[in-house]
């Protein structure tokens, strides 16, 4: 496995696009389950009612990786965490278009061996074409 080759081949390649309709009830339930008390997120009648900052992290693209991406390790992954950037408010009824690409590939070596980190990035824009969120999901593959 050559990380430089993987990066050269895969970084920045868009491999999926999906759409998601945002529902008020899910926005409310998400915020309340997280213990949110700010009315912007818990009161659907608030004039600035919007989705909680990490809300888009719940959406999954149809594919985790491109269909022809090489298998690393045993193919099973560990969730290494998520980074959510909020670029604009997400309102109920919005239809979000999301594109998926591989934003980064790097490796780290620790006590449990060598791990490859693959950063799956989803960029979201609303029905007016305004960017609203970017979610980076770090997937970890143990390659020995």
């Amino acid at each position, binding site marked *: 496995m050559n990380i430089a080759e993987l990066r050269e081949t895969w970084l920045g390649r868009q491999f999926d696009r999906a759409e998601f309709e945002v529902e008020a009830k899910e926005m409310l339930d998400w915020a309340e389950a997280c*213990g949110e*008390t*700010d009315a912007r997120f818990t009161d659907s009648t608030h004039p600035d009612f919007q989705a909680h900052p990490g809300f888009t992290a*719940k959406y999954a693209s149809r594919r985790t990786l491109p269909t022809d991406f090489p298998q690393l390790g045993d193919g099973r992954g560990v969730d290494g965490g998520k980074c959510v*950037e909020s670029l604009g408010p997400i309102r109920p009824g919005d239809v979000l278009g999301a594109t998926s690409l591989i934003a980064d590939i790097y490796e780290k070596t620790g006590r449990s061996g060598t791990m490859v980190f693959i950063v799956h990035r989803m960029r979201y824009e609303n029905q007016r074409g305004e960017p609203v969120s970017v979610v980076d999901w770090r997937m970890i593959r143990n390659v020995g």
Partner: protein
Amino acid sequence: MVTKFEDVELGDDLPEESPDVSLVRVTKFAVAAHMLWGRFTDHEFARKEGFAGAIVPGIMSQGLLAAMIHRWAPGCRILKIDTVFRTPMLADSHPVCKGAVTDTDEANRTVEIDLTIVTDKGETSVVGTAVVQLA
């Protein structure tokens, strides 16, 4: 409580919180997040998968930290929140959310906050950072 950028000093600690991660609350989150998997909603099922019990979804732990930030600085805007899930956090446990201001940017009126969630066994389950814009 913080109402504007000038209220914040580098090194300030956010008030610690003990969030509700009861199985009922986690299940509510799992429904909203379309993550209705046994490992999140059923202790027995999770044990069969090798966990000590049902676990809190990683993205819910991120939401717990965001809620803590909103209570610390009402009306603030979380521009970015980045969390790493280190060890599973169990549903029906008693974790503690913590935060500390590690950087300030006067020009953009933003602060950076280091975030952690510590389990009732003293393990750091989640670490992260947030960039928050204040009035």
